[in-house]
């Protein structure tokens, strides 16, 4: 079944059909690329580089209008900024006011914008941005100007839970996984590495931790948000009460209104484990999700276990997992896939895509049943997103 949202005005589409095209948006450490195909997804045309040499952390096309494309950039040692295109990258306009914290005696400085998320369909032109260090920002004008959003940036508890830059990921602690309930624009989730998963029911005025059931590294107190490291959290568009999470300690599922995360990664093969960065969900089936496991043993190589890369999928909400490696290298492929570098498209069957830190872009047009390489020799891939147009 294909889903087509009336909210999109028919411009960005979610179902397959004649004349539709899919574009894969690839953000890398040294620029951005767009890969275009028709809905059959057999032949791809590369468009790029855009912003060659600039660090592009995320590249997202607004599904509500099908044309607004935002790129989060931080160029070498220059301050971070955002660029906006309304013609699929033929021209770009820099944001007038990129995300920046309020000036204050103990004020922080945005190192880069890490995560971009369109707001609710009922709020056209509104976007959220998550930054490093952890901050939440909102734009009301399609990404041209941004302002600090909600209490989360300055609340003393949240500031404490965020820890310091020493507590964060190597390229900086970050706020990510900004999720908007498609039924309610005031219902938001965000995640922080470090700092845990948090929920707002009042449009971001207040947030509360959502951590029950999640493990933390042995020896630390799981009741303290600061010790939680959610790598990636996804909300199922077909069942917004279901969340999946790839965490530093495993793979979890949460079914609301319950508040207890359930570890579903325990059913992964023991030799593979359930450590990784990304997790993605099926556009129409809330029981189906994909992960890209990586080696989390000893010193945490964070590479494909045994040098044999595979995507694992569940089609029963995590009761079991299936290895999906047809077309991928059988050995000596020590891949790392970052948390934003895996995604799906909304076509039927769904496409699944991932990009490696070694610059390879892989795609499956049959939900992981078989993989093919779209591109090699790109810079380190930071993020992969898709959009369906036409």
């Amino acid at each position, binding site marked *: 079944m294909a889903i087509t949202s009336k909210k999109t005005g028919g411009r960005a589409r979610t179902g397959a059909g004649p004349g539709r095209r899919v574009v894969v948006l690839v953000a890398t450490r040294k620029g951005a690329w767009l890969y275009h195909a028709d809905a059959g997804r057999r032949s791809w045309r590369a468009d790029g580089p855009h912003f060659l040499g600039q660090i592009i952390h995320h590249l997202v096309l607004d599904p509500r209008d099908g044309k607004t494309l935002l790129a989060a950039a931080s160029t070498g040692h220059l301050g971070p900024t955002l660029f906006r295109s309304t013609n699929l990258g033929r021209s770009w306009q820099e944001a007038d006011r990129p995300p*920046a914290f309020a000036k204050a005696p103990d004020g922080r400085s945005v190192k880069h914008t890490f995560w971009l998320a369109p707001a609710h369909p009922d709020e056209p032109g509104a976007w959220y941005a998550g930054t490093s260090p952890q901050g939440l920002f909102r734009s009301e004008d399609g990404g041209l100007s941004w302002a600090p959003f909600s209490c989360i940036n300055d609340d003393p508890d949240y500031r404490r839970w965020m820890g310091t830059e020493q507590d964060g990921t190597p390229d900086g602690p970050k706020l990510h996984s900004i999720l908007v309930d498609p039924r309610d624009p005031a219902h938001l989730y965000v995640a922080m590495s470090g700092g845990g998963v948090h929920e707002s029911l009042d449009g971001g005025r207040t947030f509360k931790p959502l951590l029950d059931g999640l493990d933390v590294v042995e020896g630390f107190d799981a009741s303290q948000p600061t010790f939680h490291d959610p790598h990636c959290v996804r909300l199922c568009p077909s069942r917004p009460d279901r969340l999946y999470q790839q965490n530093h300690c495993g793979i979890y599922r949460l079914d609301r209104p319950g508040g207890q995360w359930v570890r579903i990664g325990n059913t992964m093969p023991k030799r593979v484990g359930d450590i990784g960065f990304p997790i993605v969900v099926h556009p129409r089936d809330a029981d189906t999700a994909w992960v890209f496991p990586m080696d989390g043993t000893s010193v945490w190589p964070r590479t494909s276990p045994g040098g044999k890369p595979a995507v694992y999928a569940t089609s029963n909400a995590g009761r079991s997992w299936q290895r999906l490696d047809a077309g991928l290298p059988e050995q000596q492929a020590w891949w790392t896939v970052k948390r934003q570098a895996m995604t799906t498209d909304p076509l039927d069957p769904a496409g699944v895509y991932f990009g490696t830190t070694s610059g390879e872009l892989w795609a499956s047009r049959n939900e992981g049943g078989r993989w093919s390489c779209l591109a090699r020799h790109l810079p380190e891939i930071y993020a992969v997103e898709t959009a369906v147009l036409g």
Partner: protein
Amino acid sequence: MNVLIPSALHSYTRHSQVEAGGADLAELLSNLEARYPGIRFRVLDEQDAIRPHIRFFVNGEQVRELSYPLHAGDELVIVQALSGG
């Protein structure tokens, strides 16, 4: 005064050297911002701190304070270190 612009900021100025003025470094950067929107935030952060690896030299001397006074005829060089790979 003459201001030398690093190549990473030529997308704003379109030139490697521009003329700009100001009573001090802060005012000069504000004036540059008015002419080349966005350029200030690339070299200063929101707390008015000079970004890491960005340096300002006035008449060959490194300047670390935005309140540093400037005079007609001074030359300002904005440097962006090219470290990293």
